[in-house]
């Protein structure tokens, strides 16, 4: 178990800055998720921490020690790759035993450790198979067992769920969280999937263009986004943003509901919602339209759970309400969160 730290870490590929000055610090035994769109530098950051890439500038610290110039094998880390990167010519047993052999563990001690790791992931019966004889889910467990067997200080996981089908993915997500809590090893997990990030992370670091946009608990990231990038990247559908008095006014689609359904509540703000399209997705209804009184240009989406049965039709102007405390304000130029100022909407 150890704390991983990066200090003004930079990595350039030619003229492109993939990682552009990242300062991060995990907590001991923490599950930290790096979330961002593809090309945001999250995988590069992970590879820098692993030692598979050398930073152009800055330092990586593991357990308080600078490891910037140490090779991966000196860093006491284990990594699970997106492709799992199992050794195709080795059996499951030999795959899991490989890090032990590399670490110089005596031959007679290896089988016990392999069985221990395989047991924790429930793959004891697969030890004689080869990777190509395994399903996607089984491969992922072998990769995890191979990472676990050396009892590393830090786990690095690079989108380990993206090769699984949707049904298996949610089960694997659950297992992964439970597994990490059991072994309590500091884990850095890279994903572009916000559902994975929200579900797994103790904290989430949202990355874009090689920089950390915000770091915080899933709740902070979702309800108190630091800027418009986080506000629109996290959440599906994204936060509604409207221009008002030189600022951007934002609110989440699921907090924007018909007054007829939520009733009159103190502090709520009511808008006339001009509906242009209604999508029924079964569990939710997405209502598309705009707010003529605030910003007729901006598209607004309301997400109505199936428990809200208020009839909404295309062409209608329906009064919708959002709680005054659920409104967020952003600077129009920088996109950063600001206070309401003169743009404040009052009931």
């Amino acid at each position: 178990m150890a704390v991983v730290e990066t200090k003004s870490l930079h990595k350039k590929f030619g003229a492109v800055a993939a990682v552009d000055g990242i300062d991060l610090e995990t907590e001991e035994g923490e599950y930290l998720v790096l979330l961002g769109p593809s090309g945001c530098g999250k995988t590069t950051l992970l590879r820098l921490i692993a030692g598979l890439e050398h930073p152009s500038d800055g330092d990586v610290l593991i357990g308080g020690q600078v490891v910037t110039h140490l090779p991966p094998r000196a860093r006491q880390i284990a990594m699970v790759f997106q492709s799992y990167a199992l050794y195709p010519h080795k059996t499951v047993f030999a795959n899991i035993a490989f890090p032990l052999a590399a670490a110089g563990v005596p031959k007679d001690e290896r089988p016990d450790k392999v069985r221990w790791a395989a047991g924790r992931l429930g793959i004891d019966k697969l030890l004689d198979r080869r990777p190509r004889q395994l399903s996607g889910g089984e491969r992922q467990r072998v990769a995890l067992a191979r990472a676990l067997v050396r009892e590393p200080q830090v786990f690095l996981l690079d989108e380990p769920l993206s090769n699984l089908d949707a049904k298996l993915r949610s089960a694997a997500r659950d297992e992964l969280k439970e597994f990490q809590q059991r072994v309590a090893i500091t884990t850095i997990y890279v994903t572009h999937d916000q559902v994975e990030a929200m579900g797994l992370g103790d904290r989430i670091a949202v990355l874009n263009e090689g920089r950390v946009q915000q770091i915080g608990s899933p709740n902070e990231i979702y309800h108190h986004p630091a800027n418009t990038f986080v506000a629109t990247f996290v959440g599906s559908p994204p936060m509604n943003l409207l221009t008002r008095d030189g600022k951007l006014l934002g609110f989440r689609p699921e907090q924007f509901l018909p007054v007829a359904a939520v009733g009159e509540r103190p502090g709520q703000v009511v808008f006339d919602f001009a509906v242009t399209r209604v999508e029924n997705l079964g569990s939710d209804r997405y209502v598309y339209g705009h707010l003529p009184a605030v910003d007729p240009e901006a598209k607004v989406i309301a997400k109505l759970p199936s428990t809200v049965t208020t009839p909404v039709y295309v062409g209608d102007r329906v009064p919708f309400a959002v709680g005054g405390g659920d409104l967020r304000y952003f600077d129009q130029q920088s996109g950063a969160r600001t206070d309401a100022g003169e743009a404040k909407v009052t009931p």
Partner: protein
Amino acid sequence: MTVAQRSADEIALGPRRERFLLDSDRLLGPALLAPAVVYLLLVVAYPLVLAFLYAFSDVTTGSQSLHFVGFQTFIAAVQDPVFLTTLRNTFVFTALTQLFVVLFSTVLAFVLTANFRGRWFVRFLVLMPWTTPVALSAVIWLWMLDSIFSPFDWFAQLLGIVPPGGHIVFLGQSGLAMGSIIALQVWRVLPLATVILMAGLTAIPADVSDAAEVDGAGFWRRLFGITLPLLSPVMTVALLFGIVFTFTDMAAVFVLTGGGPGNATQVLASWAFYKGINGGNLSVGAADALIMFPVLLGLAAILLRIASRAEVN
């Protein structure tokens, strides 16, 4: 004729059928296969049948007729005092050539897939023997190994291996002559093996080597534990190709030594050629050549098995 009648006639006749002849699989398939089949029959099957026919007969370049004599030609071929030398030379020549080719091509493939300045130039140099016409390379090698003007002699004189003005005489001593034809053959086969191995190396996923690095493996463990085992199927293919090319090849011998000194560099292929064509004894030449057949058949079977296994994967 009314309009209705005319259009009914047209529908009945339809567009001209000949335009769509090639849309029929029954016609298009054979049409496209025909050139290859003709080629195989004329240039592969016919000479092979002829070789079998000759090997079991008493035919010579001068004879008008051909009599079936059973295994007599094979017995005569094997009983020739030179035959055993030739057989041994063939195996030594093939084995040593392939040993060096595997070693060098592996190293070269690693070097040429690495990233460094001027890589294209080194690649060009390595692949050059492949593109050089045989006649040109023969002249180059004959000059390099010349008994008087060999540039190797200059270096040997400089280094004091031979006295000033002395010569090594590469092609005049049996050991050195064998070494020379092996060197030429390695030089010829190396580019193909290197290209095959380079393809194999680039096909190994980068993630797998990265994983081995993170798993704590150093350079040698990654090389012998991961990279070489993953490269070995491709290496087998390169090796088998090399063996087939070398076992049946007489170009190196023909260009450099003509089988000499004595028969010290005579291999089955060149022996069959000298006996059957130059010596006029077609039947014994064919028999000598056919003795290679079982070996090649075995190699071809292994190659085809590897190919079909690769298809399955």
